[in-house]
């Protein structure tokens, strides 16, 4: 039993180490930028400040202190849950995150779900289509989907469904209404690679001997597809689904801008363009923490799911 807990302890320690490394690396990289948010904001001629005034403000933020001191200061703040202020927006970073994180999570997860459904639909249809030309047509849909610019699709959907048909408002929609068009916009490009892989996997599984057996037993094509092929083909698709989540966040930047939604994508984009260090640092650390947490949970679940792992560890200890 103690071997399992020491394993858990070690994995947790590793996770914390990764997190500390992410924090340090992002801190150093952000320091290496040619300017900082304070300078960008206050050196902007629109503020009409003199060099002395700028230097004073710079000093009042502690930005003229040695890097090590700034590092320890920032680290101390992060450990106590203080992310500082967004210089550009003039609000605490935690407020910004609280306003932007939930909508992005909602948009991304719903879009992913919709993309997965769309991909399954396309794959099944392409396999069930009666004519060769129809199959070819459906199989070329993913290529079309991936080449549609998200930006253009978003505007087209708004023009058609909101402005022409007046089905969903874009301005002040309800909480769920707000998501319909953005989810559709984001789901289309994400569904493309999923559908493609699913289609290929279905074709591969169909050549397996056990399918021939099922066919020989007199099962219909639809039955085989649903009962034998689906489960086998979906597993490899799920593996790449994780990778696509990153793409989902990238697509969210455009979608959030077109639909005027708040979100992490938009926040990141603005923070990058104004080098709003405090915001960027918080985003990096939170993303790293999420990634580390997911991996840690999976790792800690291994011994639970696969008892052989726990025994192996015990033997070596």
């Amino acid at each position: 039993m103690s071997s399992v807990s020491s394993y858990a302890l070690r994995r947790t320690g590793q996770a914390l180490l990764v997190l500390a490394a992410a924090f340090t690396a992002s801190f150093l990289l952000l320091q290496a930028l040619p300017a900082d948010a304070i300078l960008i904001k206050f050196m902007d001629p629109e503020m009409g400040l003199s060099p002395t005034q700028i230097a004073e403000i710079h000093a009042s933020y502690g930005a003229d202190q040695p890097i090590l001191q700034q590092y320890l200061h920032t680290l101390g703040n992060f450990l106590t849950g203080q992310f500082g202020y967004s210089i550009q927006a003039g609000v605490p970073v935690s407020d910004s995150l609280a306003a932007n994180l939930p909508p992005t999570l909602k948009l991304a997860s719903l879009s992913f779900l919709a993309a997965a459904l769309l991909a399954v639909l396309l794959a099944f249809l392409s396999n069930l289509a009666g004519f060769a030309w129809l199959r070819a047509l459906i199989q070329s849909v993913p290529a079309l989907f991936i080449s549609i610019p998200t930006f253009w699709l978003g505007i087209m959907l708004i023009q058609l469904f909101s402005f022409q048909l007046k089905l969903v408002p874009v301005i002040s929609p309800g909480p769920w209404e707000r998501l319909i068009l953005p989810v559709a916009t984001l789901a289309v490009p994400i569904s493309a690679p999923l559908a493609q892989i699913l289609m290929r996997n279905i074709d591969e599984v169909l050549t397996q001997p056990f399918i021939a057996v099922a066919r020989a037993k007199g099962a219909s094509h639809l039955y085989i597809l649903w009962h034998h092929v689906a489960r086998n083909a979906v597993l490899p698709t799920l593996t790449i689904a994780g990778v696509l989540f990153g793409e989902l966040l990238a697509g969210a930047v455009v979608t959030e801008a077109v639909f005027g939604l708040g979100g992490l994508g938009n926040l990141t984009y603005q923070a990058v363009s104004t080098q709003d260090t405090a915001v960027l640092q918080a985003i990096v650390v939170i993303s790293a923490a999420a990634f580390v947490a997911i991996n840690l949970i999976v790792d800690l679940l291994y011994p639970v799911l696969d008892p052989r792992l726990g025994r192996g560890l015990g033997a070596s200890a």
Partner: protein
Amino acid sequence: MKGFQGFAAGRGVVFAAAGALTLAAVFPAGAQDKPVQGGTLVYLEQQAHTTLYPPAGGFYPNGGVLNQITDKLTYQNPQTLEIEPWIAKSWTINPDATEYIFELREGVTFSDGTPLDAAAVAKNYDIFGLGNRELKYPVSEVINNYSRSEVLGPLTVKFTFSKPSPGFLQGTSVIGSGLVSLKTLELAFDQLGDATKIIGSGPFVVASEVLGRELVLAARKDYKWGPAKLAHQGRALLDGIKYVVTPEDSVRIGALVAGQGHVIRQIQAYDEKQVKGDGFQIYAPSTRGINNSIVFRPDNPLVADLRVRKALLHATNSKEIVETLFSENYPRATSIIAATAAGYIDLSDKLGFDRGKAEALLDEAGWKLGSRGLRQKDGRDLILTAFESLPQPQNKETLQLVAQQWQQIGVKLNVLAGDAGTRVIDNLDPQKTPVSPGMVGRADPDVIKSQFYPTNRNVLLQKGGTSTKVKEFVDPKLNDLLDAISAEPDAKRRLALTGEVQLYVLDQAYVIPIFEEPQAFAAAPNIKGIAFEAVGRPSFYATWIAKK
């Protein structure tokens, strides 16, 4: 498809005819012009507001909010540009404009219930005029030579200046001088992006905010201190205003036309026709300051020669720019400041497009046309660089068209986008960016000093300003003229100086003025009584929504 279009058009005609008939039958003429109270105005904004510290109100989205929630000491009549009473009932200024005494109106309160009295005004101006290092407040751009305040009585406040400050009275009327409660001024500069913390005495109060996305204002029912000479008095007619950040141009316009919004800020010139065709109103109030221009940085040897700058000035065809990219709402510039600005003089004879003259000037300066169609001198190509300016309308397209025009005489202009960080830093280096777009709005001659003076915006990049990259360029004659404008108590003499500086800047070809920049809005036909303050920020105090 054809059938559908035909049907839609036919239906439109029938509806219009029926509408005209019912209106004529039911309402006597003029009845629909009677203001009604109530309703929420939906205002579609292009960008989210940033810090709402009043002196930061120059940023268009910030001004659009601050103008509804704060009041100013004085009101500048946007038609006459005269300064009229508002929170100050009256004022006296000593002859050399170093002492200002204001008598305040009685019974004015901030929305947190605290009084807007002499103490509050003094505190506001001490921070605007001197800044506050501890709370990180920068000094307001519109206040020159501020020294201190004194509370002479509960409603009497006196300001003293170290040098004459004739622009101060106008400075008390601008967006950047909105008065806020003492509680707001206790917060640090970097906390003022939260609109709910900005407590003013204006006709509207911030009711709620979704950061970066939505802002809701509610009318203050007990408001009774609007500018004394305005036709509308008492509370605002609207019950509220809802700001929705809608960054994408086509979505803003589509939403307006589809009836999902009432007013949109920033309509591009190329969209005006369509929107007007649908019966919508376009507003393009002038920002009345320094025109949308191209500015040189003479510290860079490529543009240090007056003949080169003159050549580029005459190679720039502003008529073509306005006609190609803009509309009649963007008048061609005839000086460095707008024709509606105080002290303007017409200098159009110095601004003509003349390619022959431009070529002759470059030849004279020793820049000969080389093999690749580029001008060369001492083995160097005449290649210049500029960063586009995001807040200015179609600035990238403007610069690209200028680049095409300059190419005709063998000069290359690179137009860069770049992220905000690179832009701000490289724009301060005359070696990297010898050319820059520039403009700034304010309805007082002090605006010229703001734009050119080394310790202000310093667009020419003279030595002594923010930039540490400037080697030697400084123009003492220009700076003396600018100093004189900001410290000349005699109004007539001050306007004469303003004319002198316009002439000087163009004689030196420091600037190529292109057009007078408006802030462009579009509104639904049933939105009445939209007003704009002197530099084009909207005011919804007397706005009302007519029944369709």
